[in-house]
């Protein structure tokens, strides 16, 4: 059972307080999108062994959505950050690069 720090209320929250929301930083495809792009938006998700960016909601706490960068294999958490961003903050990227030198970077 993971513990993630909610960047809004500052609580180290047990997973039982949180609701998972899948992969972070998806770009919404909509009217006008090609079929393939829209299909990928609906269904195609990364499933990496290693660095991953996820959406979580502090559902039984402050109610806010936030994002987390963590390693799916080692369960190491590189950091949590605001959901109001289009890509991981530089500081989080730096932490990951330091700890995972072979990380290919966020795309």
């Amino acid at each position, binding site marked *: 059972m993971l513990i993630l720090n909610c960047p809004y209320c500052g609580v180290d929250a047990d997973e039982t307080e949180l609701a998972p929301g899948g992969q972070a930083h998806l770009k919404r495809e909509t009217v006008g999108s090609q079929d393939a792009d829209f299909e990928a938006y609906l269904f195609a998700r990364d499933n990496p062994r290693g660095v991953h960016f996820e959406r979580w909601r502090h559902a039984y706490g402050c109610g*806010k959505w936030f994002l987390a960068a963590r390693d799916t294999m080692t369960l190491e958490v590189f950091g949590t950050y605001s959901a*109001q961003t289009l890509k991981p903050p530089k500081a989080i990227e730096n932490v990951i690069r330091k700890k995972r030198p072979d990380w290919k970077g966020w795309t």
Partner: protein
Amino acid sequence: MSTRLNSGGHLLNRSCVVNFTFNGKKMQGYEGDTLASALLANGQTLVGRSFKYHRPRGIMASGVEEPNALVNLGAQGRFEPNQRVTTTELFPGLEATSQNHWPSLELDVGVLNNYVSRFLPAGFYYKTFMAPRVAWKHVFEPIIRKSAGLGKAPKDRDADRYEHFYAHVDILVVGGGLAGLQAGLTAGAAGAKVLLVEQTANWGGRAPVDGVSVDGDPAETWVKKTLQALDKMPNVTLRTRCMGSGVYDHGYALAYEGIGDHQPEKKMVRHRLWRIRAKQIITATGALERPLSFAGNDIPGVMLASAVRDYVDGYGVSVGDRTVVVTNNDDAYRTVISLKEAGLDVPLVLDVRSEATGPLAEKARELGVRIETGKAISRVIGSKKVTGVETCSQAGEGAVLEAIPCDVVAMSGGWSPVVHLWSHCGGKLDWDETQFHFRPDPNRPPTGADGAGFVRVAGTANGFMATADVLKDAHATGKTAAKITGYVSSRTTPPKSDAEPTQAMAPVWIMPQGAGIRKRAKMWLDFQNDVKVSDVQLAAREGFESVEHTKRYTTLGMATDQGKLSNINGLAVLSDALNTEIPKVGTTTFRPPYTPISIGSIGGEARGDLFQPVQQTPISDWQVENSAYFEPVGHWRRPYCFQQAGESVEDAVNREVLNTRNALGLLDASTLGKIVVKGPDAGKFLDMLYTNMMSNLAVGKCRYGLMCSENGFLSDDGVVARIDENTWLCHTTTGGADRIHGWMEDWLQCEWWDWRVYTANVTEQFAQVAVVGPNARKLLEKLGGMDVSAETLPFMQWADGKIGGFETRVFRISFSGELSYEIAVPAGQGRAFWDLLVDAGAEYGVMPYGTEALHVLRAEKGFIMIGDETDGTVIPQDLGLNWALSKKKSDYLGKRAQVRSFMANPDRWKLVGLETLDGSVIPDGAYVVGEGLNDNAQAITIGRVTSTYFSPTLKRGIAMGLVLHGPDRMGEVIGIPTIDGTGTVIKARIVDQVFYDKTGEKQNV
């Protein structure tokens, strides 16, 4: 025969006799006994039958690894099958019965399987699947069903209580042997908050029985002193009978504490599940002895060498007068010495090694014991109990050298560290080339949120076999864990102990080395699931080379003991058959719990009334007082109907429908979701959320709206009211309030975070009552206050005002097709307002109605219900709701998905009404079938029934359903088979789904 000795047994309190029964037979034991030691003390060596072959089985071990001796305990609400006698503490009045046999333990018909065992090889189940279909149906399935299952499931409701307990500590230490105590002591002395748990009732682990000394004292003395020191530390919590069950992500661990089991007279909570967060976890879980594989190694009387001395030293029980010891290592000589010191006979020790020169072996020789090196057991003689062994050379094929009469065989195949907890959360193992076991690899630990290891292993569990090494390792581990959690250990050194030099063990797993198939087919690996050496070898020959495949094919290690006893032996046999090394074969995955835990403990307090919170409306008490028949809706409890004296549920529903249509009905609609959406961008936001336009809704008006997921599927519906320029009130379905509020927040926080919108879920802030029927206006006018006339407050509008003195908000909306006012008042006034309506409405024939009448009323009008007409695969177009899909808006959630090819397919099933030709009611969940059969000779389905009711208004069955090309087939008659097995096919005509008041005259007055 096994019996109680006159002396010995440091775990016993001989002054306290305990009476119990086994298979109805009265027996006696002492306080401190386990059921296993007490049964042996009473000469009961046969305690069960094996799972597959029903072979007679006795007690093999003395702890959690016991595979054979499983019994039924208790009766009625306290009946529990498959309880290990070795971990069951004796208490007065304990009732145990043996299981897995018929008609009796001594005479079991199922043992016939034993004689046809060559027809039940590895993968027997899977092989039956390949037989002709008819054989499976009529031969194998009935046989397997009859014989499947170990023990019998309890029939009564569990009479006991269980609880959860939360603990946050710096360090959790699992295991109360020397290593656990020393690690706990070091960490505790440094100041860390420590929880130390031991699965048995006694501290010290194996040390007291193994006769080791610490700091010059016997181990018992050191254990006692250490416990006293730990007891004085306020930062240390000690728990016995508390098993470390599992280690999970980020330092989460479960421990399972037995509280009531051994003292039922106190009527306490039975089990407590500890939910622990620890910064560091130290597993000091010791090791388990492995059996050896020789022909007949499952006959009652063949036991682990360590268990034999546990019973002698710990419980003063002789498991037999004459014990032959067979071993590949030094440790078994401790048993030899224990037996000799207790005055029991050890006629022979068979040591497969070429020489036995360790100090323990020398001591055994000094005691006059005959030791034969390089020798092994050819076979065990006996059926329901051991009567002797035939010896042979380990090197040969088993030619008999001599026959030795005996009643016990004590075997030792070496020791395997208990690495379960280390492995649960991803800790990796190394193969130890000298001790021939897997031990934790400290470089690959389970990692926590910071990326560093959070589990450490101490003592024997870490692969250290000598006491001095164990204590040194435990001290160092305790120190490291304390340091990581922020506490500096004072510079004490670990206690001293003897080096205990030993001669290396020999990696011998089966004996003799060249045993033929007849012998290998009698060598058990997994005793509980009846898996033999020959089965694993067959699996390897049939191509199951992966250890995980072999496990599933043979069921090796899949029983309730999860292979604790002989997984390594199984791996060794498999690696030999594959001609590869053991570490290359690898292990199967260790999963929690370490030993089985009760389902009750997992549930904890969450049962009965406490299973989940029940949401109740302010009017709930009135409903209870007025004989409401409740049903759960989401977390709510809603009245299904209100039965009057002498009425059936159906009668009540019909009366409520007719009364609402003809006079006046009241519905408690408080459960409907109410979400306020406010802000300069609220209109824009709702235009994205709903399929239709909400931004252009005039203040004071209401509009029905649909919400879809990004997949285009219908997700929720409800009426939206525009409150003021910046404020909308969205009604959701009863079950959808929290979900839809969460959905709104998701989009606002994660996608459109620059839109200025605020949402609030005010569902429980208001009580809402639907006043429905031709007399609705008369009642409100009688109560007086605001103007509720058709001119001032027409259909699909709302207004604030007073009614009967209450501040209300009145919505002219209708889910019944009748003249209807849904009136919201502050929750605290809901009951008073309801009482007023009931009293004042008497002269207009007012009656409350429940959810079933609501359903019938809406179905008569052809209104859809989320969850009936929709199931997560239905789009608005399927339901003929195209009118609610805005063509003006460039985008809304689901819009893009609804033009995907599958969604636009003209062959999607579409909503129609269904009218049975004979007026009967179609069963719930029925399917519509077409002509002909598909490739599998099954009927072709062309639709399904989504709602079906008896309509008291029309006095006939009505239904809605999704049917292939339905709207184009009006008037056609289709077939709907019933699902009662009679083969009846109901004929129904496809009609318009609005059965009643098609023009809407009744609601718009």
